[in-house]
Structures are given as structure tokens and as C-alpha cells.
């Protein structure tokens, strides 16, 4: 991934020297619209942080846009249409819904505005590149982490499992769940006995988790596919003092989830790199606007955070974007 960033940086430089050798890096007139799924979550705030960091380095303007809820598909379509009408230099967008955003993204491309899709894909190929966590891979890693944890605790990879989906109909969550279930086939001893779909409601996540634990007293592992479910499952486990008995692996990095990792309630967090999505997204967008060609898909990577590595400097920036230190190659 780092290599790709370097490549991008280099190509931007090259493109510029070719076009305007006299004024090497004046992008103050460039404006990049960064559109996320919801302006109201920590995760997307981190994408914005990354985008702002890139904007500062490059000296360009960005607009940070998004609906207030990830369920508001129509809202994001409207925002995208308005963005196209305002003719920015380029657009960075995370598609709330793959089908609904396909046409607006294709329209932008047709209107000559390069589009970098981040985090969640759309059902179209008419954009520059897709820069994202491979959610399927994240799910796979979650299954592996759970198997490792269960093996460490019980000596064997066997027992009853549950998984929690935060919201129905969200592509990235579907991919995580699919990766998790696909990988679980490698561990025939692990059987799914419960699955609940929530509504991104923290109280419901907690209630569902409590009830699953009631119904399945022999549960050995839980997979929670976002931070709301992770918080809920973690609270239920610590409420019932089952933190050391049931393995819990969750996506994301809410402050409560990090506490749970430190307390040993959550065994592993599957952590994406939203900062890099925003940061690289803006770099790529500018480069694409100057004619740089990118591969169709760029993996922004997933990391596994456990109690063992949670305090390591490598993870600090992932857990708290304010501590994100860019490598010397990427800084000014």
C-alpha cells in the first residue's frame, strides 16, 4: 500500500512537471469533494481527518460531505448529484449502496470529474479506482482470530458460535459476514448457533447479545461486524463476567471497544485504515485529475489489534487518528 502511495505521489509530481513546470505545486484552486456514508460516526470522521491531512500537504481545498445516517441512501445520491453540479476537480466517495450510487458515479465520470471510490464499492466500473478495506478479508481474519482464541482457551477449535450483523442491506457488512462464514468452513468444529441483525441501535445490540448468551450457555465465540455490535456484545459479556470464557472479535475501534480489548473482554479488533482511505483518496483524486491512471482496486489493508499489540506505536495511528504519523515519504 505504501508503495502505491509513493507511486501516486511521484506520478502527481511527474504529471505536474510535464504540464506546468514553472509553478510546481499550486493546487489552491483545486477542490475535491469527499463524500462519506454518514457524517456522524467516528469512522467517517477519521476518513475526513485523513482527507484534511492530504489537503494540507497538497495545499488544495476539500469539501467534506455526507448524509447523517448510513441508511439514508437517497440522501447520499442527492449529495452526489449536487457535487457533480458544482464541478469539483475530483470526487472521493464511499458508496452507501452499490446499486443506487452506480449511476451518479458514472455520471460524474461522464462529466469529466474523476471519481475515487473508497471503502464501499458501487456497481459500475466507470471510476478511477476503488480504494478500500477488503471487507471479505476482514471477515476471514475475524474467523481466524476467533479460532485462535478458542483454541488458546479450550485447547480445541470447537464449540458454538454466534455473529451479530449491525444493519441489514449494507454491502460492507455483508462482505464481512460472508468472509467470516466462508473462513469458518475451515473449522468444522465451530458451529453457528445464533445470528441477530440489529438496527445500528446500541441498546438493541446489548439486548440481543444478552439473549444470545442466555439461550446458548455453552457459547465459545462471538463475531460482531461493527462497533455498535462490538460495544453491545462487550457490555453483555462484561455484565455477565463472561469475558474470559467467550471469545469476542469485533470490527472497528470505538473508545469502548479499545477499553474492552485492554480489559480482555474483546480478544481482537479487525481494524481498517480509514485515515489512509481519506488521505490516499485525496492524493489519488488529484493525481487522476492530472491524468494518472490507477489500478482498478487498491487494498487499504486491515490490521488485527489485540491486547498484545494495542500499545505498540504501529497501532497508535489506527486507534487514534490524531496520533497518525505519516512516513517521511508522505509528509512534506
Amino acid at each position, binding site marked *: 500500500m505504501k508503495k502505491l502511495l509513493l507511486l501516486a505521489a511521484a506520478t502527481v509530481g511527474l504529471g505536474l512537471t510535464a504540464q506546468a513546470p514553472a509553478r510546481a505545486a499550486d493546487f489552491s484552486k483545486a477542490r475535491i469533494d469527499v463524500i462519506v456514508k454518514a457524517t456522524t460516526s467516528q469512522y467517517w470522521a477519521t476518513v475526513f481527518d485523513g482527507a484534511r491531512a492530504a489537503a494540507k500537504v497538497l495545499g488544495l481545498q476539500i469539501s467534506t460531505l455526507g448524509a447523517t445516517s448510513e441508511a439514508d441512501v437517497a440522501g447520499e445520491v442527492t449529495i452526489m448529484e449536487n457535487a457533480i453540479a458544482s464541478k469539483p476537480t475530483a470526487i472521493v466517495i464511499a458508496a452507501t449502496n452499490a446499486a443506487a450510487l452506480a449511476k451518479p458515479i458514472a455520471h460524474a465520470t461522464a462529466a469529466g470529474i474523476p471519481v475515487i471510490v473508497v471503502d464501499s464499492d458501487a456497481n459500475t466500473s466507470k471510476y478511477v479506482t476503488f480504494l478500500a478495506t477488503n471487507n471479505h478479508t476482514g471477515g476471514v481474519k475475524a474467523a481466524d482470530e476467533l479460532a485462535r482464541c478458542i483454541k488458546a482457551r479450550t485447547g480445541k477449535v470447537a464449540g458454538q458460535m454466534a455473529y451479530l450483523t449491525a444493519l441489514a442491506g449494507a454491502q460492507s457488512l455483508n462482505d464481512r459476514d460472508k468472509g467470516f462464514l466462508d473462513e469458518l468452513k475451515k473449522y468444522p468444529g465451530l458451529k453457528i448457533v445464533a445470528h441477530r441483525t440489529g438496527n445500528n441501535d446500541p441498546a438493541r445490540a446489548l*439486548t440481543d447479545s444478552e439473549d444470545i448468551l*442466555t439461550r446458548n450457555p455453552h457459547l465459545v465465540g462471538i463475531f460482531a461486524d461493527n462497533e455498535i455490535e462490538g460495544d453491545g456484545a462487550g457490555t453483555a459479556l462484561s455484565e455477565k463476567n463472561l469475558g474470559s470464557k467467550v471469545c469476542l472479535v469485533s470490527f472497528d475501534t470505538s473508545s469502548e471497544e479499545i477499553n474492552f480489548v485492554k480489559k480482555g473482554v474483546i480478544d481482537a479488533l479487525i481494524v481498517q485504515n480509514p485515515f489512509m482511505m481519506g488521505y490516499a483518496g485525496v492524493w489519488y483524486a488529484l493525481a487522476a485529475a492530472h491524468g494518472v491512471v490507477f489500478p482498478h482496486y487498491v487494498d487499504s489493508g486491515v490490521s488485527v489489534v489485540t491486547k498484545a499489540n494495542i500499545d505498540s506505536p504501529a497501532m497508535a495511528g489506527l486507534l487514534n487518528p490524531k496520533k497518525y504519523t505519516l512516513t517521511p515519504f508522505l509528509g512534506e
Partner: protein
Amino acid sequence: MASAPATTPSGPAVADEAQASSLRHRLPVEIYVLGFTVLVWVGLGVFSRYFLTAGNISNMMRQVSIDAIVAFGELFPIILAGIDLSVGSVAALTGILFAMMLAAHLPVLLALPLTVALGLLIGLINGLAIDRLGIPAFIVTLAGLQGFRGLTYLVSGGMTVAGMPSSLDLVARTSIAGIPTMFVLMAVIGLVSHFILRYTRLGRYCYAIGSNAESARRVGINVTQVTLVCYCIAALFAAFAGMLLVSRLTMGNPNAGVGAELQAIAAAVVGGASLFGGRGTILGCFIGSVLFTTIGNGANLLGVSSFWQMVIEGLLIALVVYVDNIQKKRQAGVR
């Protein structure tokens, strides 16, 4: 005036008798819903060996508490023939501010009254907009549903607020005589609400305004005052729920209380309240909340799909309103 009237008395006596007896035989909806809830309990007791365990019952008691408190508050505007769609967002806003105050190491005993005051202020704003500006309650509180949620995201930056003091666990994780403390708090709030509605002039005026606001005004009831009090109660109880959610989730979460207003309205309606006003009881609200909690719990314990659970809840609301309507028609037929 003690003597009997000389002329023929009005109305055939037979009809009067029939009517009196029909009134006696018209059981309140609460009773049917209670019966249904008991049936569901028996069914779940048979089909899930975990349902009637002490652990599960104590879980359900904690789960129902917050929903019921919101529903109790919601009942007041509903009786007035109004509605408060903002309670879920108010719970989120008050909850997140409560959590932020605690995270900033403010003592609970200071954060609590501040949060309560905020709840009352919001209720006052809702009530004034409805009564003084004459904007329909539906519109005012729809704006609140959106606006207060927005404020919640604004003040929290959309992030959860962790780092709650351990003293908060005193509410969410303790029991009094084997009954979860949250349930006890809910019961106290419920009893006070019941008392207000059943035994005070304020309560009586709520029903009077809800069934005929104009007549209430004509007999000299201060409709404005009662309206303000009702919306303040709704928002205050939402603030209680918001704080209890913080204690239960051990954090402030800006997504807390999403859809709580609909849950509360559903519980009130299933418990016999009418959205046309004038009807509804705290006991009914409580039974309605218990029924919804039971269905959720049952679906989880039986592994029924979350989607079927929503369908069942929807059918239930439709069924209760249908049964209630039939009863009303039958009653009107006697007239």
C-alpha cells in the same frame, strides 16, 4: 325536586339498561393484551427452557425498564391527542451530554440535575411551539426528532463517549431485593405517573383535553399549562431514559434511542391508548412494553429471524388497533 317527574321519562328504559350492561362488559384493552402476554409467556416457557430462568427474567426486567419509561412519558402527549416523536432523540441528546459531563469528571449529583433541567427545557420548547404557536405536535416533534439527533451528533462529533465512572454501575448492574435497580426505578416512575393520571386534577384534565379540548377550555381548564406539563413530562422521562441508557451501555452513544419514539408509541397503543386522545393508562403502557420486550426476547431465544420479529411486532399493533376498533363500533351500535 324530590318528586318523580309528571311527564314521561326520556328514552326507553330497556335501552338504558342494555347500554349500562354493555359498558360494564366492555373490558379494557389492557386486559386482553395482558392475557395475550401471559399466553406468550406460557408458550415461550414451553418452547425455550431458558425463558423462565432467573437470569433471563432479570435480563428482561432490565431490558423493559428503559423502553417503559419512554413509553410512560409518551403517554401524556398521546392522552392529550398529541404526540411526541422527539423522545428518542431527546434521550440521545440528554444521554450524550450526561456522559460527556461524567467523562469530564463532573460529579453524578451535579450532572444529573443539569440533565434533568435540559430535559425540562426541551419539553418546554416543544410544548410552547405546539400550544402558543399552534403548530401541530406531529410537526414540532418531527422537527425535534431530526434536530435533537443532529445536536447529539454535533456535540459528540458522532463518537461514543467512554470513561464512565464505576458509580454508574450502581444503577445498571445492581439489584434491590433481587429485582434489578433499573426495574425498581421504572416502577417508581410508573407509579408516580399512574398517580398523576388517575388521582390528580392534572391527570383528569389531560383526559378532558384529549377528548374535547374546546370543552376543557370552556370549563376553565388552563389548557396551555396542562399541555406544557405533558410535553415536559415526555421530555423529562426521555432524559431519564437517556441517563439510564448511558448507565446500561456504560457509555454515551449518539445512536442511542434510535426509533425509541415508535417503540414507545407502539407500547402505548397496544396498551390501550388512543392516538385520537382521551384514552390510555400507565398500566397499559407497561403491559405493552413488556409484550414487545417479550417478543424480542422470545425471538432471540427461539432464534427467530430478526426480520420476522419486526413483522410480528407490526402485525401485533395492527391486531390490537383492529380489536379496539371493533369494540368501539359495537359500543356505538348500542347508542
